C-alpha cells in the first residue's frame, strides 16, 4: 500500500505535530510499517533542518504540519486542534 492510497482510503491522516497518524485503528501490519517508515524519515529530515536553520525541532515540525494541512487533498484526513480526525 502506498502513502497516497492509504490517505485516500481514509486509513491514515496528517497529525498537528507534523507526523502521520492512524485514523482507522487497529491498523493493518502494512499500514503500520508504512507509517513508521515515513515518520522516521520525516524525523530525520526535521532534525537536518534544525541543524541548517537554527530553528527548534518543534518549530520545524509545526511548520511542516501547517504546510501539510494546506496541501492535503479534499476528503483526506487532518487532525483538528482538539485531536479529532476531520476530513478536509
Amino acid at each position, binding site marked *: 500500500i502506498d*502513502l497516497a492510497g492509504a490517505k485516500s482510503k481514509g486509513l491514515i491522516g496528517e497529525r498537528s505535530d507534523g507526523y502521520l497518524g492512524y485514523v482507522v485503528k487497529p491498523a493493518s501490519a502494512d499500514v503500520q510499517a508504512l507509517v513508521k517508515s515515513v515518520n522516521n524519515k*520525516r524525523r530525520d*529530515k526535521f532534525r*537536518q533542518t534544525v541543524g541548517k*536553520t537554527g*530553528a527548534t525541532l518543534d518549530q520545524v515540525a509545526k*511548520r511542516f504540519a501547517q*504546510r501539510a494541512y494546506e*496541501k492535503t487533498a479534499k476528503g483526506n484526513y487532518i487532525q483538528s486542534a482538539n485531536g479529532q480526525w476531520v476530513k478536509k
Partner: protein
Amino acid sequence: CTPTVQVAVPDKPIEINLNVKIEHEIKVKVDKELDGMFEEDSGLF
C-alpha cells in the same frame, strides 16, 4: 465674558518602558529545507 477653553498640552511626559526580544524569523530558510518533502517522489507526504 465668554468662557475660554484652554487646552493645555499635558506637560508631564509619558514614560514608556518596553522589553523587545528579537529572535528573527527563520521560516524562510526552514521552508526552503522542507520543500523537498512535498515533492511527488519524496514519499514523505
